[in-house]
């Protein structure tokens, strides 16, 4: 992909920074190049339909999404197909990535209001139904769902805010 086919607001420098970021996260230069290429195409498509102020931040976000999806797919393939040969120990890169994300998510969870956090813990960690949570905390099922929605939205907003400021990359 040459400079003049890059989307609006994205230059060769941004592309290079994206690839470097992805190499750090994915550990593979080839995968990083693939994902960067794909992300740029998606950004062009995105800008065709949405007005975007900060194309660079969006490009990184699209790339992160592609990387997560790639890794989720990989994990599924590993679990499903090659059961006998799987080395359970995570690779060094994955460990680094996960410890960063773990610390980030812990901070995001700490920042939630206590009731909202409690509902999320019961729902995701303890797998309780909305009715169970409602009974325990004296809330209606609808209110429980609203807490889950708000908790999830807050965590996503926290992630977005802290991805590109260098505080804690995904």
């Amino acid at each position, binding site marked *: 992909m040459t400079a003049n086919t890059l989307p609006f607001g994205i230059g060769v420098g941004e592309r290079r920074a994206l690839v470097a970021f992805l190499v750090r996260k994915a550990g593979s230069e080839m995968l990083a190049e693939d994902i960067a290429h794909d992300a740029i195409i*998606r950004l062009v*498509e*995105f800008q*065709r*339909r*949405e*007005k*975007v*102020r*900060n194309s660079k931040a*969006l490009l990184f*976000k*699209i790339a992160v*999404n592609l990387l*997560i*999806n790639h890794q*989720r797919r990989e994990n599924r393939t590993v679990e499903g197909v090659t059961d006998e040969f799987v080395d359970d120990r995570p690779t060094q890169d994955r460990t680094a990535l*996960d410890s960063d*994300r*773990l610390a980030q*998510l*812990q901070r*995001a*969870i*700490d920042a939630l*209001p*206590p*009731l*909202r*956090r*409690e509902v*999320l*813990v*019961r729902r*995701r*960690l*303890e797998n309780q*139904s*909305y009715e169970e949570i409602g009974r*325990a*905390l004296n809330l209606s099922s609808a209110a429980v*769902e*609203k807490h*889950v*929605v*708000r908790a*999830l*939205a807050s*965590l*996503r*907003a926290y*992630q*977005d805010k802290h991805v590109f400021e260098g505080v804690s990359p995904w």
Partner: protein
Amino acid sequence: MVIRIGAFRHYEERIDEIQAQAAFWVARENSGRIREAERIELREWLARSPAHELEYTLADSLYADETLIAALRTAPRLAAQRRATPVEGALDRVKRGLAAIAWPKLVAASLCIALCFASARVLFQPKPDAPTEDSRLAGGMVLETRPGERLLVQLPDGSRVELGGDASAEARFTPAERHFALRRGDAHFDVAHDKSRPFLIQTRRAGVRVVGTRFLISQLRDDTRVDVYDGTVEVRPDRNETSKLLLKRGSRVTIGRDVTLTHFDASDENDWRNGWVDEAQISLGELAELVERRSGERIVVDQGLSQLKISGRFRINRPDEIFDKLGRVYGFKNYHKGDAYYLIKVD
């Protein structure tokens, strides 16, 4: 050429809403209570914008993330009675000890939170696409395009406005009137009929009042032009002017220092959309501006050429084509260098 549908505001300005909607759908899907009708609604919502799809995928990945579950294991808990799972027995005892110490602080915290929730509910309603277009328009909504873009906007009253490139406009609806200000660029209007609620358009040079009709307004360098495709349009050449013009299908009024009334061929309404302009007398400089707006290409006109008067029917979305053709007739040439087209005189 870029056509964006319904892109009222920047993606960044809507991100909170989109994230709330995405979270709503992810929670709904994982509640095990999602209905078929909601699934259809979700699919439609996802198809409406790449931003919806992106935020949905990110929220979904986060919800399913093992790392999230790991992070929740160490989360502080509300000191309420709860059933512990056997795995957590050991951790739990530690935490209960901590909770006992932190008890008074937590009570204060959760009281305050309850208040926050009560007020937050009004501001933050995670519903899929809240039907608030009309109320949003009450505060005024700015519509803008960059050169080379087009924006098709469906207003809540059913009117459709299509903005050409490099245009700026604002819509503001009240219960009694529909206000629209076109500050820059061209806009094609298809106004929904509503006798009780006139559609009023303010431009630099004129005020336009309609009940329901189709017409095109172009802001030229010094003039405002109105082309009427259907129905009747009332034009007041100046804000303070009491005289008004009633225009029927096929009428064109150009308002500048003078007001000229002419006719144009209204049979092909797609003319403007396809980039055709019909000009009796336009300067090359002005024409270059129109091409710039429509194509998004930068055009630099030689000083001695910009006042050159040109007439005819042109297609302005392809700079190379139009300037090749005109250059042969009017004696100039064009070349493309860097990010611009240059028009220069041929001696």
